């Protein structure tokens, strides 16, 4: 499935843009997405941590992604 991943903060710099078109296998889980992201962008592994948000909610690793989902990479937050 074709999808657009939103990136913010340091992830935006690692991905060299605020969003990234990606071709993902159907039925991919959040954990599998993280593995593919880290394989394609090894800098992601150097982050203290990061989470995936799906439709504006933090997602668990076993969540299965759909092409209609809004998917975002959330590097360590630092508001306030």
């Amino acid at each position: 499935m074709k999808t657009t991943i939103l990136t913010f903060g340091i992830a935006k710099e690692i991905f060299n843009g605020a969003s990234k078109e990606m071709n993902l296998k159907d039925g991919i889980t959040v954990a599998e997405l993280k593995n593919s992201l880290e394989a394609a962008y090894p800098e992601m592994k150097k982050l203290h941590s990061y989470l995936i948000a799906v439709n504006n909610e933090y997602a668990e690793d076993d969540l299965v992604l759909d092409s209609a989902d809004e998917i975002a990479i959330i590097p360590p937050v630092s508001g306030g």
Partner: protein
Amino acid sequence: MIDVKISAEPLDITTCIMKTTDTECGGIAIFIGTVRNKTNAKKVIRLEYECYQSMALKEMKKIAADAVRLSGIKNITIHHRMGILHIGDSAVVIAVSAPHREAAFDACRYAIDTLKKTVPIWKKEVFEDGEVWVSAHA
């Protein structure tokens, strides 16, 4: 009353207090996060904030609703600034009113502590000799 806002314009502290004022409340606690002039003895030039706006607002509303539910406060205002901020600027204002002071202090602290952990907002510290996304590699 819950009021959350993300703003590219300077935050108005008086407005936050006015919105939170309530004749049934005996006190207002307020936390203002401001831009510090140094980090680990390094001079800070400016901070650059960005956010995932739709999700950030959603998470801020959750914090506000939880603060009301957990502490028994009556009103909470959370305003966060975006964009380029300079030393002394207000980055976040949290105002809380409650019938009694204890709940107001507790909820105000809960709100800023939780905001720093869960709300998708990021800041980059710009120094004289470089810049760093705060907490990214901690």
